[in-house]
């Protein structure tokens, strides 16, 4: 959960990027890292295998600026998407403030998206969270590829609650900052309600 530090006047929030293997979670973070000014970001950490698949998590600390005299810091994490890393995924969700679900728009990944979303709900429940009550946005990634399902189709299936949804192409960066902004907004609004 968020960490409010009155001593250093900082708010820290944790955002987790979730989704099936190779959907572009790490690519989202890499784009944010590459496009963020030096003074606003920390080091990006990727705990990955030799073939660049996420093994445990990627981590990117971001300082967004001040709100009411408090520095807002967002800690972005990705989970490993591959099915058999489930134990690690559960750990990353601990203390999460907001979730981005990165869906792979390609037709052949349709089922993988559903499976991953179900897995997200189960794992959140295990940590005592309810996805329905958590700041949550969905990004339909890889919109530039030829074999993609329509956004309408994806939305009907993955987003019955109609949380904010965005189209993206994480490789070129399209939709990446919009997604981050959408989830950050929900997280800060949550803080506001709690206040």
């Amino acid at each position, binding site marked *: *959960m968020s960490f409010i530090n*009155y*001593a250093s006047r900082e708010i820290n929030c944790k955002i987790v990027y979730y989704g099936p293997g190779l959907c572009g979670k790490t690519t989202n973070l890499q784009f944010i890292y590459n496009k963020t000014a030096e003074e606003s970001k920390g080091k990006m950490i990727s705990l990955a295998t030799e073939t660049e698949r996420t093994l445990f998590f990627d981590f990117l600390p971001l300082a967004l600026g001040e709100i009411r005299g408090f520095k807002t810091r967002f800690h972005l994490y990705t989970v490993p998407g591959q099915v058999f890393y489930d134990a*690690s995924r559960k750990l990353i969700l601990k*203390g999460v403030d907001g979730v981005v679900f990165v869906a792979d728009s390609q037709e052949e990944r349709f089922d993988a998206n559903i499976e991953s979303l179900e897995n997200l709900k189960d794992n959140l429940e295990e940590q*005592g969270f309810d996805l329905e009550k958590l700041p949550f946005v969905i990004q339909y990634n890889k919109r530039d590829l030829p074999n993609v399902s329509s956004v309408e189709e994806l939305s009907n299936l993955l987003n019955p609650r109609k949380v904010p949804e965005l189209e993206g192409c994480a490789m070129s960066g399209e939709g990446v900052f919009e997604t981050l902004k959408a989830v950050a907004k929900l997280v*800060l*609004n949550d803080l506001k309600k*709690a206040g």
Partner: protein
Amino acid sequence: MLGPQSSLVMYDEEYQRILLLLERLLRESNSKVIFLVDKNGQLIAATGETANLDTTSLASLTAGNIAATGGLAKLIGEKEFSILFHEGEKDNIHISIIGGRVILVVIFDQRSSLGLVRLRVKKASNELAVVFEDLVSKTEQQAVSSSAPSPFAEITDDDIDNLFN
């Protein structure tokens, strides 16, 4: 004890008490760096030779480490492993859990020893646990008293939009 779901709130008074305890532990254990991390990976406080250290990354990786070993512990029927020790060629890291939620990390070299660090950490842990207990009750009190509204109650959409400009 701090529950796993509760937001951590730090106030100036408790922060100063924590810093004093950490500075004393640093002296008494002859260590190089000490920091406190929330189990979610947020850095709470640090003292010692932190100038050339990426404390944010250290905090996140420490929490990941504790989470992973906690997962291992559960698999073999343990509640958690409350102490971890990593031995390097020059520097060593001693990690322990305080009050179920906060992680104390001590980095030391040959000027100290594992035995000394363990001994001093044990004493400091009890004192730190008391501060965190106080912090929890203070947070609960603040939550019910309307005299101290949270500064975030007043956040506007414009405030949030401005962050991204």
